[in-house]
């Protein structure tokens, strides 16, 4: 798209009449085009007047529903992520929000919320919450690290996994969803791949199909990671073919 073409798109942009790609191209252009920015702001304000002209009267039930919902919705921090983001940033934001949900559940457990942990004894829950809280801080640090890089892949049987690596922190976080429960008391074990030699990075919770795990131990120059199914308690070395092997992002 030429600059002259972009100049003429102010109206279409203000009316949300561009395709997603054009919308993004125009926003990049806006950052460097002061006159376009002024005109765009005015045309957006004009479009809002078209909206005000069709105001209507909502039913009271809408008010009740909205006010009930906001009581449970966490607000975003100020100056949060911009609407246009790179793939990595988008994935990281998605992981962070999923992690935030996990953190909420942890908080619920710590506060004695019984719904989440009702299948466990109370002392288990408190202990687990404490450990999860410690892990949660470290997970957050990896996800938020300026040098965090991520890679996603398909695991066997419809599960997907992503690994987020921060070399400055020398840590990795593994996020998985849709994981089937291993059969016969087996567990999933994580491994660092030291250029072909597997080093254990801890076990995953076999009861949860979606989880975010801090890989145990330092990266220490590992080239990738793997997941295997192991007997309860884990193994010193993998005893089965890996479910997944993923090189770390560069």
């Amino acid at each position: 798209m030429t600059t002259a073409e972009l100049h003429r798109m102010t109206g279409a942009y203000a009316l949300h009449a561009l395709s997603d790609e054009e919308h993004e191209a125009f926003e990049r252009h806006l950052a460097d085009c002061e006159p376009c920015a002024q005109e765009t702001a005015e045309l957006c304000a004009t479009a809002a007047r078209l909206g005000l002209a069709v105001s209507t009267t909502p039913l009271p039930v809408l008010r009740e529903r909205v006010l009930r919902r906001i009581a449970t919705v966490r607000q975003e921090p100020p100056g949060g992520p911009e609407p246009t983001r790179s793939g990595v940033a988008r994935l990281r934001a998605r992981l962070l929000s999923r992690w935030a949900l996990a953190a909420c559940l942890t908080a619920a457990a710590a506060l004695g919320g019984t719904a989440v942990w009702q299948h466990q004894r109370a002392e288990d829950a408190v202990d687990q919450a404490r450990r999860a809280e410690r892990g949660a801080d470290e997970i957050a640090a990896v996800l938020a690290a300026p040098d965090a890089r991520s890679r996603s892949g398909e695991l066997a049987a419809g599960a997907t996994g992503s690994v987020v690596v921060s070399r400055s922190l020398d840590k990795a976080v593994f996020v998985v969803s849709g994981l089937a429960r291993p059969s016969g008391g087996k567990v999933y074990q994580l491994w660092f791949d030291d250029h072909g030699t597997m080093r254990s990075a801890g076990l995953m919770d076999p009861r949860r199909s979606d989880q975010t795990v801090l890989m145990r131990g330092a990266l220490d120059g590992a080239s990738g990671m793997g997941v295997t199914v192991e007997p309860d308690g884990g193994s010193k070395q993998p005893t089965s073919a890996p479910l997944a092997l993923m090189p770390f992002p560069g």
Partner: protein
Amino acid sequence: MKEAVHIGRNPSKEPDLQELLGRVALGDEEAFAHVYDAVAGSVLGVVRAVVRDRAQSEEVAQDVLVEVWRTAPRYRTDRGTAINWILTLAHRRAVDRVRSVEAAVIRDHRAALLERTPEFDEVTEQVEARLEREQVRRCLRTLTEIQRQAVTLAYYRGLTYRQAAEALSLPLGTVKTRLRDGLIRLRDCLGVTA
């Protein structure tokens, strides 16, 4: 340029909304209830104009209002007034909901699309809303036929300029230009500043 006539909105209301939104950004639920009362009718109006289906409109409007709560901490006054920010969000979400419309559907419903004028809510008793409506209607009449159709199809029907070009059987470049000069004429007629 024509003398701008300001009759649509009570300018003293806007700073209130801005201030309320500032309190919402700090997690003030009571302030949010006031914001709701000030904007919910406009949010639902915008969404309903685009989405048409009543149940879906209410669903989208509800999501928009919750998004206002969620993202209020990110709202920046230098990016436009609070009501503009909220209605832009409402229009965007409404458009997202209907964007899946295929070109074929537009071809089939071309005549209907061109016939339908926006659903101005004639029953509202609120003087302010009626004045706003009359002013926008008056200014839409100052546009050329093509400008008015292009702007109306894009804003109130949620069409892309490509879809609008197809519905109007006009070249893409023409529609893009008409959307711009049409909105500029509306801006001047309504006396909009940003």
